């Protein structure tokens, strides 16, 4: 068992928000999905107050060992999620974490007020990689903005609140420390790095959204450094992610100070990647360390 900010997880591998859709996966793989569910907690795709259709296609561009996406957070909105998705997610065999994004602290608070009281929901993740329309600042790029976001939702719920940090901040550890002081129960990182690609022929931006976010092995080294810096700065648990494709990579993130890890883009290459990575990690820890349970025993990085 892995203890993660009060949640008791059967292991340390989560999914990255927006990289696995349990409902669509059930349509494709049937109920076998629930029996072989690849993660120890399920994080939903980010939802917003109002429905969004997302960015125009094309939304994907492949890079060496990675991907740039400009998906644009398509989702059914708060009502659509509560009525359409949440009932189906009752069948999940693992704890449910709902990712929310608002264009300012008030909207975030409204989302948490709508979602957190539901019994199916065990924790919230705040996606702060978007502008606060009031200030024009990307909330997650600024410690004070991030603190205001956490302060707005903290009084609304007793359930664990995870803040998903963006790597496109000058000082992610400073943002993490501000989130912790404001009452966050955990931080997760990294979200995607900004990137773009040009159309091979027209030389205009390829992606319908103009620029996008880079994920996958291409960003692993950057992510590892940020996880290490953040874990060295805060006392709350850290969810480490960014390009993890094997148990050895997961072990690196744990050794850098993460409590648990998340798998994103690798699930696109293998829907069951989460289970494979957990199995590989278990073998590594048993062979190298002589114990089998994965618990938060980070080796002091210094």
């Amino acid at each position, binding site marked *: 068992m892995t203890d993660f900010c009060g949640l008791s997880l059967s292991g340390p591998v989560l999914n990255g928000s*927006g990289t696995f859709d349990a409902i669509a*996966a059930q*349509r494709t793989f049937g109920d076998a999905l629930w029996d072989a569910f690849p993660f120890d907690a399920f994080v939903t*795709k980010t939802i917003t107050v109002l429905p969004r259709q997302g960015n125009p*296609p094309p939304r*994907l561009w492949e890079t060496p060992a990675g991907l740039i996406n400009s998906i644009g957070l398509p989702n059914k909105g708060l009502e659509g999620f509560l009525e359409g998705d949440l009932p189906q997610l009752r069948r999940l065999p693992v704890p449910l974490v709902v990712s929310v994004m608002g264009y300012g602290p008030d909207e975030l608070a409204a989302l948490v007020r709508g979602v957190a009281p539901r019994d199916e929901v065990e924790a919230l993740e705040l996606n702060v990689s978007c502008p606060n329309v009031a200030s024009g600042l990307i909330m997650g790029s600024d410690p004070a903005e991030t603190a205001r976001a956490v302060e707005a939702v903290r009084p609304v719920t007793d359930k664990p609140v995870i803040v998903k940090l963006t790597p496109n901040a000058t000082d992610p550890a400073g943002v993490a420390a501000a989130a912790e002081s404001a009452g966050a129960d955990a931080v997760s990182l990294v979200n995607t790095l900004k990137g773009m690609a040009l159309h091979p022929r027209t030389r205009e931006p390829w992606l319908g959204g103009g620029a996008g976010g880079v994920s996958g092995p291409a960003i692993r080294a950057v992510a590892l450094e940020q996880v290490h810096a953040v874990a060295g700065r805060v006392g709350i648990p850290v969810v480490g992610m960014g390009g993890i494709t094997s148990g050895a990579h997961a072990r690196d993130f744990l050794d850098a100070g993460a409590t648990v890890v998340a798998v994103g*883009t690798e699930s696109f*290459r293998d829907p069951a990647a989460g289970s494979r990575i957990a199995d590989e990690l278990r073998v590594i820890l048993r062979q190298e360390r002589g114990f089998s349970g994965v618990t938060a025993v980070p080796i002091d990085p210094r």
Partner: protein
Amino acid sequence: MSGARTLAPFGRRLAEVTAVERIGAYALLCALDADGPADPAPGQFYMVAAAERWGAGADERPFLPRAFSFARAWPRPGGGAALDFLMEDVGPGTERLIALGEGEGLWLTGPLGIGFAEPEHGRPLLVGGGIGVAPLLCWQDRLGRDAEVLVGFRSAQHAEAAGLFAGEPRLATDDGSAGRHGLVTDLLAEELDTDARATVYACGPPAMLEAVRVLCAGRSVPCQLALESGMACGYGACFGCVVPTREGYVRLCVDGPVLAGAALEVVA
């Protein structure tokens, strides 16, 4: 219209390449999918990657698996299926797959998406352009001999793939080097003008599919179009593969790849 969906085993699995054959300008990649279902539905697809050296091509790609309709599937006595994929080399992924040899490993996830639905009225007319003939091969097998097949290719070399169909498909080429000099949609217009009682199934480049959609809409002929879009996952996880429909964006990998022509404003 409600097409068929065979469920996929969860996760990717290793299959074995049994042969790669040249068919004119294309290649037929044959694989033994021992752990997959014996009965994928025509129009469904698989996400495919080479087990070794996937990522060492041009621009250090491919990284993600690639989507391919299965062209044919034969149930195997011991379980699983022998699968044929008809491929056109257009970039690092297809180049690598076509270079595989007998006995090499292939990662497969699938079958994915929703395939063709039974004819709604009239005779089935199968319309293929270029590499788009792939999913029509197994659909012809399923529908039997009364399915009429119209195909168009760039040249006689590409048109060798027409020989994979049973019977004698009607053929057009862009350069007139085989069959009729012209477009497959010219053949379709003639067919429908002779007898409009038909259900049209089409797969090919976007401009061809748009022409098919317009031809059918103008004659109130139902059509089912197998579309393409860039995919990362193939099972609804990334929201990367959306296409615009009258109802907004849909994920082609889970709500398609076969869509009713009537659901589309335009094939872009």
